[in-house]
């Protein structure tokens, strides 16, 4: 009796469908790889080996030392060699694939089968019990039916496709009982589409396999069903043709975890966020563009009315008849109007420059520049203020100092810097403008004997607009724009600027060109 039992069992397990499912269906998890050279020494490994081994291998270690279960199998006797259900440590079963490549390296691939073995175990149990019973009852169950009926233990809902419908095998697996579904049967045939409308579409694909001459399989996409308790489950169908018989198996999919919680869900969420960010950025840029354009237009259009008021106040101030009639206070008021308007004009011009720089309307054209011309231009621009504060302006030009720049823009930048120095240099002080060449490094250095700045102010100097402007030594007001413009112009040239300042002693700006 013992003998017939084992024979029956082997028959069961050699059932091609059963083997097929065991070999093909379970997802390959925990795949690791080891590579050994022709002498059997480990060269390379891949995957999380700690699943199977207590320690990491070392390069050059004999592979049979590291994985004793490979003893005598490297290189493989047949190529490839595949051994299933190898117990490598407690409760850990693997499928071992041993392959040789053209260069006589041996590749060992391990696939975790522990779960599968765990699942097979109850089947063996089931068969043992069934067979014991049947030998007792002296009845013989149909082989095919027997195996298929047991597939529910592997979570499969099993049907055989027949000409006019589906025949159900075995009993329903646990997950099916959790669904809000039942099987509709009519004269032993199951109306599977009533239960799972999805199958209607899958059948179209399955039919190609089922009507073929050959064995084969096709796996469906996933579909979602709702459990009685409101949770969701993803199912997947498998159509099989084997030995001229057709099967349809349905099983919960374990792919959806990896897919929805993982990769695809994340990728899609990320894409949505990125799209939103890109949109916001586009809108912001557009708005900023509008702002600069607006500022540019307004400051351009304000220039002539401001100029007109200045012209008029100058006209009044040079009218001797009028001047004679005004008392001192009235004259001062008129002078204030003119000065304030001049300041407004200066501010307005800077705004115009700024907005055009932001808009990129100023194109840099680098040409060799003349330091002398630049120095003269700046001196001329500042001459009135220099005279007023009795400041000495020193120009120093090293003969070998030469570089390329946009002369107009650079002139503006230096002028702004010198203007700044004038503002903060007390009466009788000195400002020097030095075009230097020291060991081939060209730079422009502006030094003043002004009031200097603390470290904090130095650091924030070039950060664009500042609300906080410092009064000059004569109470001159600033625009808060000047140094921002300087920085823009220098950035466009790819020049750098450094500032060096001692409080109460003076400041020095160095433009490295």
């Amino acid at each position, binding site marked *: 009796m013992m003998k017939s039992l084992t024979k029956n069992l082997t028959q069961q397990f050699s059932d091609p469908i059963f083997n097929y499912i065991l070999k093909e269906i379970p997802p390959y998890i925990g795949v690791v790889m080891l590579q050994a050279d022709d002498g059997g020494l480990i060269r390379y490994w891949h995957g999380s080996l700690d699943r199977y081994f207590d320690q990491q291998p070392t390069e050059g270690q004999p592979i049979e030392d590291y994985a004793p279960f490979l003893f005598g199998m490297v290189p493989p006797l047949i190529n490839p060699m595949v051994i299933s259900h190898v117990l490598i440590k407690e409760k850990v079963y693997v499928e071992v694939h041993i392959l040789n490549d053209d260069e006589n390296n041996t590749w060992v691939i391990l696939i975790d089968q522990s779960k599968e073995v765990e699942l097979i175990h109850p089947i063996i149990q089931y068969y043992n019990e069934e067979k014991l019973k049947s030998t007792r009852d002296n009845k013989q169950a149909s082989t095919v039916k027997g195996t298929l009926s047991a597939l529910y233990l592997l979570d499969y809902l099993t049907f055989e496709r027949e000409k006019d419908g589906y025949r159900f095998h075995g009993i329903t697996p646990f997950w099916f009982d959790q669904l809000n579904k039942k099987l509709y049967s009519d004269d032993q045939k199951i109306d599977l589409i009533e239960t799972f*409308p*999805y199958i209607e579409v*899958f059948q179209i694909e399955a039919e190609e396999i089922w009507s073929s001459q050959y064995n084969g399989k096709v796996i469906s996409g996933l*579909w979602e069903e709702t459990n009685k308790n409101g949770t969701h489950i993803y199912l*997947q169908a498998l159509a099989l043709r084997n030995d001229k018989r057709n099967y349809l198996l349905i099983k919960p999919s374990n*792919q959806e975890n990896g897919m929805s919680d993982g990769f*695809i869900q994340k990728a*899609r969420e990320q894409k949505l966020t990125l799209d*939103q960010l890109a*949109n916001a950025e586009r809108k912001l840029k557009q708005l900023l563009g509008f702002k600069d354009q607006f500022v540019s237009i307004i400051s351009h259009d304000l220039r002539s009315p401001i100029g007109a008021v200045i012209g008029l106040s100058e006209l009044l101030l040079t009218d001797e008849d009028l001047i004679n009639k005004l008392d001192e206070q009235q004259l001062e008021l008129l002078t204030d109007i003119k000065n304030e308007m001049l300041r407004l004009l200066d501010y307005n011009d800077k705004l115009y420059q700024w907005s055009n720089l932001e808009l990129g309307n100023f194109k840099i054209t680098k040409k060799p520049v003349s330091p002398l011309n630049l120095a003269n231009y700046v001196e001329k621009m500042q001459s009135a203020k220099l005279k007023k504060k009795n400041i000495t302006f020193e120009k120093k030009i090293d003969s070998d100092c030469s570089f390329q720049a946009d002369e107009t823009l650079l002139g503006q930048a230096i002028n702004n810097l010198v203007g700044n120095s004038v503002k903060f240099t007390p009466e009788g002080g000195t400002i020097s403008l030095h075009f230097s060449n020291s060991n081939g490094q060209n730079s422009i250095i502006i030094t003043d004997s002004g009031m200097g700045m603390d470290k904090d102010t130095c650091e924030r100097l070039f950060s664009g607009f500042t609300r906080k402007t410092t009064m000059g030594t004569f109470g001159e007001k600033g625009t808060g724009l000047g140094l921002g413009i300087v920085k823009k112009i220098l950035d466009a040239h790819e020049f750098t600027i450094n500032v060096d300042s001692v409080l109460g002693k003076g400041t020095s700006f160095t433009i490295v060109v």
Partner: protein
Amino acid sequence: MLGAFAVGKTSLVQRFVNSIFSDKYHTTIGVKIDQKIVKVDDTEVTLMLWDLYGDDDFMIVKPTYLYGSSGYFLVADGTRAETLQIAKRLQEMAEVTTKNAPFILLINKSDLTEAWEIDPEAINRLKQSGWQIMLTSAKEDKMVEEAFSLLTKMMLEIQ
């Protein structure tokens, strides 16, 4: 329900079938089939609604899912212009597989007006070429019921 990912296919079906809406995005893997009985001019019709996964580079909708369908919704997201392009591409595929079954283009998320991106001109052009188009909001329950009953009517007229 055909369309790019995250346009609101699942949300529209859930709004219609179960009168619920969730702000949380849970991408559909595979296919979810829901059923709803609707009454059109005293005729009861059972709708089998196939909510498909969103079409993108990760997952491309297979034509087989469309075999035998009597009609379909193309869904786009009004705040993402590219989803309209995807809807147009899916329509070309669906037209062939369903042998010209009726369809309606739903431009969803109509509640998000300030983030709206789809140009009204583009919508007009499609309307002129004969497309049925509706602006819907699964979130605020705007035009959802109407969309489903119109498509049902269109499907019944064909038969």
